[in-house]
C-alpha cells in the first residue's frame, strides 16, 4: 500500500479497536445507535402536507 497515503491518515488507538468489539460497551452502543436512528426515522415519517407550507 502507498505509504504516502497511510502516513497522513488518522489511525485508531488500541483502545478504540478494543472497544469496537467489547461486548458490554457495544450493548450500550446498540441501544444508543437505535435510539438515534429511531429519532431520524420519526422525523422523516412526518410526510403529511400542511396547507400553505412548502
Amino acid at each position, binding site marked *: 500500500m502507498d505509504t504516502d497515503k497511510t502516513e497522513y491518515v488518522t489511525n485508531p488507538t488500541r483502545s478504540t479497536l478494543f472497544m469496537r468489539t467489547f461486548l458490554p460497551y457495544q450493548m450500550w452502543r446498540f441501544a444508543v445507535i437505535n435510539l438515534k*436512528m429511531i429519532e431520524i426515522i420519526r422525523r*422523516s415519517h412526518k*410526510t403529511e402536507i400542511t396547507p400553505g407550507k412548502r
Partner: protein
Amino acid sequence: MTNVVVLGAGIAGHTAAAFARSWLGRDDTVTVVSPRPDYNWVPSNIWVGVGLMKPSKVTFPLAPIYERAGIEFVQASARELHPEGGVNDSNPYVTAEFADGRRTDVRYDFLINATGPALRFDKTPGLGPDDGHSLSVCLPDHAAQSAARLDEEVERMRRGERRKFLVGVGHGTCTCEGAAFEYIVNLEFELRNRGVRDKADITWITNEYELGDFGMGGMHLKRAGYITPSSVFNASLFAERGIDWITRAHIHQVEADRVLYETLDGARHEQEFDFAMLLPPFSGVGLTAFDRTGADITDRMFMPNAFMRVDADYTARPHEEWKAADWPRTYQSPNYGNVFAAGIAFAPPHAISIPRKSPNGTVIAPAPPRTGMPSAMIAKAVAHSVVDMAGGAREPTHAASMAEMGAACVASAGANPFTGTAASMTVFPIVPDYERFPPYGRDVKRTFGEIGLAGHWTKILLHHMFLHKARLRPGWRLIPE
C-alpha cells in the same frame, strides 16, 4: 372503483403496492407489473457476494405474497405509457411485455412508476458479469457469481499465489458507492477469516472526489471537539485494513486483467486485477410514452437519462445556485396528475456532490443515491397521496423530499456476531440544505457515524425486520421504512 398500477416490485414498488392495497377499499384494485418473479432485499446482496448467504436468503417469490394480500401481479416488463389512453378509449394504460414477447395493456386510474434502475454495464466496454470481465452484486445471481469467483481466488491464495482485488465503481457517473464500500470491507474481513489476507492486494477505485463522499457530498461528523469530514473516517478504515484507494477515477475500459482509467487531472492509468467487483452506472429503464394520437411524448415525461420528470425544479444552474427546494416533494408528474414516480425511477434535479470534469471533458462525479430508506419513504408518501386522491383529494397530500428527510444507514464491515463490525450512520437531511443548516448543510446533532459490533447487530436486525415486512407478515405496518 379505483385501479392503481405499480410498475416495479423492488423496495419502492413493493412498499407502494403494499400500502396502497392496505389503505384502499375492497372494490379498488392494486396491480403490480414487474418482470422478475422474486422480491430481492438488495442491501443483503453484499453478504451473498462474499459467500455468507445463499441467494434464497435475500429473495422470496412475490406471487403467493400478492395473492394473500389481494394484489394482482403481472409478471412482465412495462414498455409503454399511454397516459391519455388511445384514439378510441381515453382510459390511460400501460403496455407491458411478457418474457415470451406477448404484450398486454394494463389500465389504470393512478400509476406509480417504481421501475428502479437499468444497470448500464454497456456504458463501459468490458464492464459486467455477462459480457465483460468484472463482477457485480446488483442482482442475487450476480452476487452468487461473485461468491463463486471469490472461492476460486481463495483456493489459489491457499496454494500460495498472490492475488489482486479491485472493488468500486465502473464508470465516472456511477452512484451506489456505499454498496461497493460495504463489499470491499466485507471482502477484506472474509479474506482474513479464511486465513489468506496476507496473499491479497485490495484496491478501491471510485469516482468520488474524496473518500466517504457516497454521492451525497460526504458528511460532517461531530467528534472529539471537531467537525470532521467523512473522508477522514473512510481513509482511516481503509488504512487500518490495508486497503489501497484510487479516487476521482472514470474507468474507460475493463480488460481481462486490468482496467484503463482516467483521473480528474486528465491523466490515464492502468490497474491490474485478478478479481474485480465494479458497480455499473444507472439510467431509467427506458419506458416510452405516447399521447392519445400515438405521438411520442417520452421527452415530455422523462429526462434524457430515462428517469421520470416529477415535481422537481429541473432548471439547469451552476452548483453554487442549487437549493434544497429544487428537490421533488410529491413525485407527481408535471404533465399527468395521476402519474407518480417513486424510488430510483424519479429524475433528481441535479447531483448532490459537486459536478466535475477532467480537462478531456470526462465527467467524474457521483450521481445522487436514492436507494433504501429514502426509496421506501418516497413510495409510502406517494401511496398515501394516491389513496387520498382516489378518495377525492385534488392534490397530493403527502411529501417526502430528500432535502427534508433524514436517512439511517448501516454499512456492514464484517459479518460475525462477536468480531464483526458495521458503520452505523444517520444523516439529516439527505440533500444538504445550506440555508437551513449552515455551513455544512446538515444538522450536525443528527448526523453521526460510528463503527462497531453494535452496528453489525443492527444490520442483522434490519435484515430480518425488513424481510418480515416485505413478506407482509403480521405487524408489517409497524416496522418503519
